[in-house]
């Protein structure tokens, strides 16, 4: 499966994703410059964390209007997969590829810490290998990760089972104290209705090796690899 890791000016998790995909997962991967529009040779595009364009206006705002993100619309329509983590999630929301928006953390401070994610929907390309209610350990590192959607949008998210991860306790309870940023209903990650575009604030690439304290981040990739192979569409290439 061929991965592309997008690089915007100011992106910094690009190298980490690249490392995990090539050195841990042993999958082909290349960097994709933000001005690129040609994504034809890719199966999965990763929008990594960082501060694209400094995030000086709003997190992800400028990158959300870049050529590569524009090209993602076609890519997704053609069945391509997109994983946006941290800044990548913010960009997907800003671009309208996912609903809602990410606001400043309720504590008004940056937060870098380990979190527990409760898996809610296992019928997406990225969570197919997981159990409902399974608890993953993955760190967050952001200043603007409070998910917001208006009541109507939230209803739609629920109706279409687009909420994939919520912040929870180690035992899987979704509590107020487990919410690190004030996110609406503890939402940590969502997908598009087709389950092919995942946005999440936590960093799966930082939880991909035992030495880093958790390997739960790999599960997302393994689900993806498994699901794509199963469905066959990418085997022919």
């Amino acid at each position, binding site marked *: 499966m061929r991965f592309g890791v997008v690089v915007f000016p100011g992106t910094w998790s690009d190298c980490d994703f690249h490392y995990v995909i090539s050195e841990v997962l042993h999958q082909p991967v290349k960097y994709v410059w933000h001005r690129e529009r040609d994504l034809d040779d890719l199966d999965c595009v990763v929008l990594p964390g960082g501060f694209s364009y400094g995030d000086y*206006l*709003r997190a992800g*705002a*400028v990158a959300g*209007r870049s050529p590569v993100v524009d090209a993602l619309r076609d890519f997704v329509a053609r069945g391509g997969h997109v994983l946006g983590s941290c800044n990548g999630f913010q960009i997907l*929301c*800003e671009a309208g590829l996912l*609903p*809602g*928006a990410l*606001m*400043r953390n*309720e504590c*008004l401070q940056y937060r870098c810490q380990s979190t527990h994610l409760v898996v809610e929907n296992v019928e997406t390309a990225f969570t197919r290998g997981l159990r409902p209610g399974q608890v993953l350990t993955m760190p967050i590192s952001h200043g603007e990760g409070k998910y*917001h*959607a*208006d009541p109507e*949008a939230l209803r739609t998210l629920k109706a279409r089972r687009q909420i994939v991860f919520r912040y929870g306790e180690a035992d899987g309870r979704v509590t107020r104290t487990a919410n690190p940023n*004030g996110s609406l209903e503890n939402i940590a990650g969502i997908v598009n209705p087709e389950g092919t575009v995942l946005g999440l604030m936590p960093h799966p690439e930082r939880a991909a090796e035992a030495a880093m304290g958790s390997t739960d981040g790999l599960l997302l990739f393994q689900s993806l690899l498994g699901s794509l192979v199963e469905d066959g569409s990418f085997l022919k290439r």
Partner: protein
Amino acid sequence: MKFRVLVRLKPGILDVQGAAVRKALAGLGFTEVSDLRVGKVIEIELDTATADAARARVGEMCRQLLANPVLEDYTIEMADDLARRGAVR
């Protein structure tokens, strides 16, 4: 031509920063503040022939980039409207 764009959280969206500033002010003895909201002001100067055309362009900028419609409202003001008010310091 000079414009001023004010970008503010939509009513109904909790303004955490505003609440924090209000609390800090109360701590300093400014207890009379009954409401406070924090937004962004973007001052734009542009080379466009007519005021109407310019205003339309600024509107376009807001829709395309300056405000996030999920969260924010915006207002556009022309600098001439504001001329009479003098800056402090």
